[in-house]
């Protein structure tokens, strides 16, 4: 049913349709609305039997999910940013144990400086944890991906993280076609665990594994993710058959057939990029877009197939590895080895900096003329940076950079204080 609804609420309604059995909640913006809404539904008894547990930290949230999942329950939680980092040890643990937990990650920057707005630093911080990471482009896709995520997680016994842009998606009210219960029930069978804590058939889970077997265990986890590369398109295809909607999958191309330049990105920014691409196309530039939905497992073959015919690939990402450069760009470069494609990295939208269509148009204009350097920070305020550099050079006790920069900008008011 097409409903005008906030993104978070759409996720909550969809998660509810997936019949979660244990939901752990800990507040952090921009994820909070999701877990609040699920909480209301549990308290009303709409989801019975379902336990909603108000934990004391994200570390506990993921730990409760681990226990619940190992005891055979369908477990769900949501977090963002600092919360994800606070639960980091348990995030790795859940994947290591092969527990099919589903988590929404409402992507948000990581402090310091503390910042509640959107970028992808949080997701990148756990990219090696063994979780499957799917990025949603729209609220519709975010909602749909949750149903697919439970299915995928439970089929493979791997946890799945659905990444959706904080605020941009979570807090946007727009039309979302909410699924109905019979469709979800038909699509998502009850959870049949691969391993379970059962007094009638006792097993030990989480034993110490030494050098004699650790590498094999890790390799098996890798194989499961490679398996996911086959399953994700099938699951998306079946979803299409059931709903008539294309959601999920590995990668998606837009106007790339004849493109000289292909822009690669993940998440909601793809919408703006497509708009800018349309405009540049109207000016005769041959430019296209590839959106990555599955970041982990990384679909190297499909990425290569989608990009190889373009002389230039511009990777635009909302995160970077400080001291190195783009994270997604590194993976893309690996996938393109030997193709001769030139890869340009663009870091954009950090900490919620708007990525405007105009900025993108300018960027693509330059790209079309081969004027992009290897690594570019979109809309960087060079003047402010230079001023702080000068201050640091002038004397030892230059003070905290973040505060200096804010003062230079003429404001010390931190937006979103108290979250």
């Amino acid at each position, binding site marked *: 049913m097409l409903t005008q609804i906030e993104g978070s609420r759409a996720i909550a309604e969809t998660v509810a349709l997936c019949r979660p059995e244990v939901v752990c909640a800990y507040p952090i913006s921009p994820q909070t609305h999701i877990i609040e809404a699920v909480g209301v539904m549990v308290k009303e008894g709409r989801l019975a039997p379902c336990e909603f547990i108000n934990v004391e930290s994200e570390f506990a949230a993921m730990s409760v999910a681990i226990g*619940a999942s190992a005891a055979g329950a369908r477990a769900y939680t949501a977090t963002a940013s600092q919360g994800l980092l606070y639960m980091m040890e348990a995030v790795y643990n859940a994947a290591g144990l092969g527990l099919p937990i589903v988590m929404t990650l409402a992507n948000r920057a990581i402090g310091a400086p503390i910042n509640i707005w959107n970028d992808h630093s949080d997701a990148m911080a756990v990219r090696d944890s063994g979780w499957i990471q799917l990025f949603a482009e729209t609220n519709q896709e975010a909602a749909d991906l949750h149903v697919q995520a439970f299915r995928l997680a439970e089929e493979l016994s791997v946890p799945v993280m659905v990444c959706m842009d904080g605020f941009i998606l979570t807090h946007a009210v727009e039309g979302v076609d909410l699924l109905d219960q019979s469709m979800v029930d038909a699509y998502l069978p009850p959870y049949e665990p691969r391993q379970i804590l*059962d007094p009638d058939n006792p097993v030990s889970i989480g034993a110490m594994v030494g050098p004699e077997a650790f590498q094999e265990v890790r390799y098996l986890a890798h194989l499961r993710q490679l398996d996911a590369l086959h399953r994700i398109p099938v699951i998306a295809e079946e979803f299409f058959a059931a709903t008539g909607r294309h959601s999920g999958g590995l990668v998606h191309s837009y106007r790339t057939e004849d493109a000289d330049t292909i822009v690669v990105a993940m998440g909601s920014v793809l919408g703006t990029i497509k708009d800018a691409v349309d405009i540049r196309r109207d000016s005769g530039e041959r430019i296209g877009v590839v959106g990555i939905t599955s970041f982990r497992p990384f679909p190297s073959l499909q990425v290569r197939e989608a990009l190889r015919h373009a002389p230039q690939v511009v990777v635009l990402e909302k995160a970077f590895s400080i001291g190195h450069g783009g994270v997604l760009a590194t993976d893309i470069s690996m996938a393109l080895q030997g193709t001769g494609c030139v890869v340009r990295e663009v870091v954009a939208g950090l900490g919620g900096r708007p990525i405007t269509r105009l900025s993108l148009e300018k960027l693509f204009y330059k790209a079309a003329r081969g004027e992009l350097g290897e690594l570019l920070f979109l809309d960087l305020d060079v003047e402010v940076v230079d001023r702080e550099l000068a201050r640091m050079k002038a004397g030892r006790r230059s003070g905290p950079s973040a505060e200096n920069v804010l003062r230079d900008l003429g404001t010390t008011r931190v937006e979103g204080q108290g979250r």
Partner: protein
Amino acid sequence: MTKRPIRFYQVGSFAVGNRLLRDDERTVQSDPHRSNSIDSGHRACQGCGEALGARYALDAAMRATQGQLVAVNATGCLEVFSTPYPETSWRIPWLHSLFGNAPAVATGVSAALRVKGRSDVRVVSQGGDGSTVDIGFGCLSGMFERNDDVLYICYDNEGYMNTGVQRSGATPPAARTATTDAVGPQPGNAFGQGKDLPRIAMAHDIPYVATATVADLHDLEAKVERAMSFRGARYLHVLVPCPLGWGSASNETIHIARLAKETGLFPVFEAEYGTVTSVSKIRRRTPVEEYLKLQKRFAHLFGKNPRPEIVTHLQEIANRNIERYGLLDTADAPLARHATTAEVRS
């Protein structure tokens, strides 16, 4: 198999040998049909109090639940020595996740069982003192506060033993550990620090809190059984001497645990809903020296350069416990007056 009378000889203990008891009063361990939850063949050190305590506690919990038990384990000696795969000592469903999250994992297991309509299956979560009083404390307090249906058992050997004997928040003053060495003017662990977790647990007003030692295994079993008669969060703190970390002879584990209680250094009691309901009285009051001298971790207090003032300080701590809990039969108004933290720490 018929019940064979098992002989427990009295070796200076005040424990009643099983042979003197009626069948139904005998220990779970003496029952040939006990579950052997943690089986022999594990790799604990000789005389490990933790292995002993876990065996008695879990078998008692198994009996109390008619075998419907799931155990969650924090990282630490118990976890490491019991599961060097492909060998596992566990004959019950057992899950190890991390060092600091065992109480939360247990909450999750318990929630899942409730959802599945299997509330007959009960959950025990267990860890060493380090995981309990330090790194897992937030999760533990959260589990208590929500009154989740979990029995948490802390095996307290007063230090991080699995990583090679470092100080924890449960290490006693003056004790030598690898991070509180017996050097300098104040050798060993500092005075005036540390956490008294049984009392902190009581402050959560949970249904049941108890302490026990491996010297009185009958008492330990009874407390586990009592704990399993409640729903909600329960806490059992068991003193388990560690021959390796304490520098004690492996055949002295039980003796040392008994002295911890008889000196007053480790008060043994039960509490329900935040109020002490029973204490195990000291049978033969013993000066702390007798306890300390059996352990190399306190060796710097004796010998060539003795430190009698430090021993006196430790004796004062024992006296404070005796007063607080009324550990002596003669103590008047034992629970009337609660010492302030400042007094205890002085």
